[in-house]
């Protein structure tokens, strides 16, 4: 039986817009065919809605009122200082930088590959070469429509390959800046492969430049962490208060690999950060942490799927949210432990600090455990600022606004402290602090 569902205006536009731009998208015949198949799949699926379990709290079909035209990089190339301004505290970090503006690689703003052992390239170029890069099979339950749109529309992104045993001497900063004066859909995909025993820190910064219109972004990062490799992957989403940001991170970890992911989401109208990690080798360790800071009617959704597919792996998740006005935070944390995956160790914690009565936090842990010798735990809290602590601080002369800011900062500090690189940790703390100052202004 086929159920006829009326397509929304946005769904129609997403299908329709593809025809107009398909010929201009990078890649040879094989890529074009993959795109076509993907947009066909999307047409059948439609935008995810609340009756799909993974989108229970984030009904994209309702939320996405319109689909913006895909970006074809019509805006002029911004200057370095404009990018730096957009990066804020991240600009001062000593990094290898690769810049994408409106979904296109800007070589003039990007550094070169730092060494023979570290290859950094553009996805658009790779697609044109027909190497099949970035076209690997990507599947996560419930995420298929968003991934299909990414495949259909992706214009560019970074391809990063770190050779076995190599160490990236300083962090790699991938900048995704929006500059268009008209709202655009920007679709990017990154492929990050860290060879066996290699070490690297990769930062993604998603931002809007001064004067840019709000936009829509669909970004996907596919990360492969080799045996005994160590990667810190930090994502800072500050796309703009009215922007929609759909981010998918798919990671596979080899034996005894270490993957430390951090996500800071601020200043985004609607954000859905999906992160799916699969343990493919035994003894690997995963740490996913993050902060989300929402105000106004912002909606920030963090959805994690951790698959303990092999024995003896450890996963840690810690998310801290600060929500004010009518902002809504969503945390969905799924942990799967396969029947054979004994000695799995998973811990999950999601906490929100509610600064207004109208803010909302939905937290849904989901443990799917099929092995018997495992340690798995989860917790979730939503609380207001402790008035007793505020009074204690004020009785020492600390003004209300400052006391609130200190308490909020200490609340998210536990998550930010998970970032091991000190300069990076401080820079992200600064980004968060600036946002918190707006969120927590003194209220008499």
């Amino acid at each position, binding site marked *: 039986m086929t159920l006829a569902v009326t397509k929304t205006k946005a769904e129609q536009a997403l299908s329709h817009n593809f025809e107009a731009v398909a010929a201009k998208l990078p890649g040879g015949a094989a890529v074009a065919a993959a795109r076509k198949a993907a947009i066909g799949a999307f047409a059948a699926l439609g935008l995810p809605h609340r009756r799909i379990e993974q989108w229970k709290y984030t009904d994209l079909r309702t939320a996405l009122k319109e689909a913006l035209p895909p970006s074809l990089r019509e805006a002029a190339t911004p200057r370095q200082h404009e990018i730096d301004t957009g990066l804020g505290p991240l600009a001062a970090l000593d990094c290898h930088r690769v810049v994408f503006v409106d979904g296109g690689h800007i070589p003039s703003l990007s550094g070169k590959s730092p060494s023979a052992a570290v290859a950094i390239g553009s996805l658009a170029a790779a697609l044109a070469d027909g190497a099949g890069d970035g076209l690997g099979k990507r599947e996560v339950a419930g995420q298929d429509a968003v991934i299909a749109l990414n495949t259909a529309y992706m214009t560019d992104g970074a391809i990063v390959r770190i050779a076995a045993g190599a160490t990236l001497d300083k962090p790699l900063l991938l900048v995704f800046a929006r500059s268009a004066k008209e709202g655009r859909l920007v679709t990017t995909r990154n492929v990050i492969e860290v060879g066996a025993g290699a070490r690297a820190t990769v930062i993604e910064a998603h931002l809007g430049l001064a004067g840019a219109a709000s936009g829509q972004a669909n970004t996907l990062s596919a990360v492969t962490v080799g045996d005994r490799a160590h990667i810190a992957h930090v994502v800072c989403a500050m796309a703009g208060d009215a922007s929609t940001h759909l981010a998918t991170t798919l990671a596979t970890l080899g034996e005894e690999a270490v993957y430390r992911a951090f996500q800071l989401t601020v200043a985004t109208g609607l954000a859905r950060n999906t992160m799916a990690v699969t343990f493919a080798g035994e003894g690997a360790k995963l740490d996913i942490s993050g902060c989300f800071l929402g105000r106004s009617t912002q909606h920030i959704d963090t959805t994690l799927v951790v698959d303990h597919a092999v024995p003896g792996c450890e996963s840690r998740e810690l998310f801290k949210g600060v929500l004010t006005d009518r902002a809504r935070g969503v945390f969905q944390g799924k942990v799967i432990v396969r029947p054979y995956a004994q000695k799995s160790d998973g811990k999950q914690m999601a906490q929100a600090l509610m600064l207004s009565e109208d803010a909302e936090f939905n937290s849904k842990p989901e443990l799917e455990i099929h092995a018997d010798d495992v340690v798995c735990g989860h917790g979730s809290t939503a609380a207001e600022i402790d*008035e*007793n*602590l505020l*009074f*204690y*601080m*004020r*009785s*020492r*002369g*600390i*003004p*209300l606004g*400052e*006391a609130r800011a*200190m*308490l909020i*900062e*200490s*609340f998210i*500090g*536990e998550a930010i402290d998970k970032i091991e690189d000190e300069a990076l940790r401080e820079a992200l703390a600064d980004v968060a602090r600036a946002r918190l100052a707006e969120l927590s202004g003194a209220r008499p």
Partner: protein
Amino acid sequence: MLEIRDLRVKLAEEDKPILNGVSLKVPKGEVHAIMGPNGSGKSTLAYVLAGRDGYEVTGGQVLWNGEDLLAMEPDERATKGVFLAFQYPMEIPGVATLTFLRTALNAVLRKRGQKELTTPEFMKRVREEAGRLGIPDDILKRPINVGFSGGEKKRMEILQMAILQPSLSVLDETDSGLDIDAVRVVSDGVNRLRSKDRAMLLITHYQRLLQYIVPDKVHVLADGRIQRTGGKELAQELEETGYAGFRGNALATA
């Protein structure tokens, strides 16, 4: 001078009167003790002086150097020199003790139009005072009061007092939970702050603390009223007779 005039207070949430017309004066340079049985309203008085929410003042006045203390926000009171040493100091995860002390001191100095201390000046002052109170350096780096023992928390209150140099100190059951050595250290800390420019109010159930911090006057608070006022010898008398004679309104004017 602290002047409390016919202060009447009830819980904000329920119609339960706690203070039923407290009147007392503490001139600068004097230390007064308020003693009383459990539930007499001692802690309520301390909290109302510091400006804690949850209480409703239904009548009376509190003047500090002639200014209406009750009209001020808690941080404003601190700026005016009011300090409450808590019976149960709060634990604040994620806020290092040094950061807390420095933020408080600078806020108060700033509001008073005085110059903030430089880091070396501040560190010198904290180390000096902490040393006198037997507070080890490593504790200053830990989140304030988190995981501190009862004695450490009380010493930390006195450290804060020493750093902020208040002109009106209200000490709520500062000796509770302290062993005799700690009582001595804490008392020494309080006595160091005694001066002709400062007024102090010691709230205590037992007279033990008053052997170390000798008050100029002792007030007995029971049933939400000052039932009797006397010299330091009154504390000793209470130790022998207990508070039984002060319970119930029938005895209030006896």
